[in-house]
């Protein structure tokens, strides 16, 4: 019987491949995706020390971010700018508001702009599905921290462990990996 952590590698590989591929198609240059599993601050510092040329842009952020225990996160950078993507991976019959809230909390605390709730081989609870359909603001949250506007965008997807592919739920602000890629591409457009 597999546990949820056993799906991390295949999910990471798929997301990374999609993001890199789409960035190459849109921006004609490379995108770098570095993964951390577990505690955010330590992992960020490790990534920066391992890839100083590409990740120096995240150094200030890594200093001020609080310690936070996560499932998986990705530091996505083109070498000049970076964004943080947090994945909340679940292996449950139906992912509910509890799981969604957990992801939202992690993103708000860490300042990560992007968050994906991923349930392996199952979808969302009827309650969460309805909420994401009708309450659009819970997947697009803006906060002001130290007079600085922060935006947090969320999506909910299902990982199909047979096809090794995402099945979109059409729920949340980020509806597909290509949409996530498009946003990253436009943010990193200036290089």
């Amino acid at each position, binding site marked *: 019987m597999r546990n949820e952590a056993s799906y991390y590698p295949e999910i990471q590989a798929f997301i990374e491949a999609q993001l890199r591929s789409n960035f190459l*198609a*849109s921006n004609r240059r490379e995108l770098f995706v570095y993964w951390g599993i577990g505690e955010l601050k330590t992992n960020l510092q490790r990534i920066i020390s391992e890839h100083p040329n590409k990740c120096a842009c995240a150094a200030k952020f890594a200093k001020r971010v609080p310690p936070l225990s996560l499932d998986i996160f990705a530091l996505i950078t083109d070498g000049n700018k970076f964004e943080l993507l947090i994945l909340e991976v679940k292996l449950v019959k139906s992912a509910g508001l509890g799981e969604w809230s957990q992801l939202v909390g992690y993103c708000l605390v860490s300042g990560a702009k992007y968050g994906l709730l991923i349930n392996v081989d199952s979808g969302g609870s009827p309650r969460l599905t309805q909420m994401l359909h009708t309450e659009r603001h819970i997947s697009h949250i803006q906060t002001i921290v130290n007079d600085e506007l922060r935006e947090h965008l969320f999506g909910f997807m299902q990982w199909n462990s047979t096809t090794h592919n995402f099945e979109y739920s059409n729920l949340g602000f980020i509806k597909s990996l*290509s949409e996530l890629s498009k946003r990253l591409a436009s943010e990193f457009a200036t290089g």
Partner: protein
Amino acid sequence: MAMNTDKAYIFGMVIGGGIWGDAEDYFHIRLPFKQWGSYFKNPQRASQITRDIMNLNNMFRSVYGITVQYDTDAGGVWNVICEGDTTELRTDLAEHGISCEGEMRKNTSITKITAALVDDFMKRRFIAGLADTIGSTAPSQRRFTEDKQIISFELSGFNFSFVCDLCRLFYSVNCLPDQILWNHPNFHSAKNPHFKGWKKGFKLRVLLDQYAQFGAFAFKTKAESSKENLQLQHQKNDAVLCPELNVSATASCVHPAEHDANLPSCIRGGHYLHNRHVCAVLGCENAPYGAIKKMFADIGELVNPFPILCKDKIGKIEKVISDDPLLANRTYQISAVSVKSLYDNFQANNNALLYGNAIKTGYPISQIMQGIAYIIAHDNEIGVTRVKGKYTDLIERHLAINQNLSVELRKPNLLTPLVIMGNGRGALVGARNPAVYKKLVSVATDNEYKLCVRPITEGDLQNA
């Protein structure tokens, strides 16, 4: 529009199965799953297919705002009905030189779109879209035995360049196609030039071992079916690079449809000894050019201007003879021949040539026995013109009941086809005559790999 991985998948699906009409807010994707996907044959799989299609709905909605529904029939054809504003999808496809008209895979060039797939991952998403529509994982897809399981990409029509581009795309992700079957009479009707139903389509077949490693599916049903098929194998199969393939051919007859107007001009008018011969004429960089050229040395053995074996009702065989002056103007020596004596000859040497007029000429006994099997069979032992089961078993069965069984043989005065008659049925068996047939073949002026065969004349046979 920048290509992305989700669009690549959608484009694969739409090109693989998309059928467009005049409506701007509607098209459908035909999934020709046949028995494999029939709710009548396999309700559990059919139920999973509906789930797969509904997952498509979310993909299409999130990328293009198009909603998806489906219908199906007991025959296993599924239609993914796509409704909504299709303008953006049409515009995106138009950027790649693809117009949304009719049955797309029949008239679309994928040269431009495959060039826009920036890396292997994006290519695999496009391939997954095609695999989910036209990639057959039916259990019958295997090479000879269960130890070589196959996924077969099946296309109707005459879009040779589509097949060529798709094959190149597989090659580019290191997924080497195992076999290619071109929609051409030399392959679909290699023995019978009078068979009109030769347009059976293209097949591009990839070993499942290869596809599992380098390909992809998004339909769970296809992925599961592919895994089930793989479990039937007792060994791993490696693919062979096309230029390293061992190419061998058997004789094929010259078919009038070699000049069919549907064939692309570079193919039309040519005679093809092997499927990879078509690849060479199309100029594919991976074609086994050396092996193809090598076959040209034996061209007289590999081409036959007559039917190698043509079986039909007696009236139709008589019409074939009367319509062709070369056959009609012969004098035939008619005799009743014992089936047992011919079968004894066949068992002694199944490569024997009968009634020839020089070395290496005559009628192949194996073809004669196949013709005889068709003629002596009871109605319930044949399909349309095909004997059910092994033809040798059928002959032995009938000889066990009647040792004195005979058929009427009409032997022509020149080496035109031998005629076998009986039981209201007839068969034509073409002779081997390599020295004469070789003289009919020439190489096209514009392509050193394209062979053209002129019609045989009475003079060719008389002056042999």
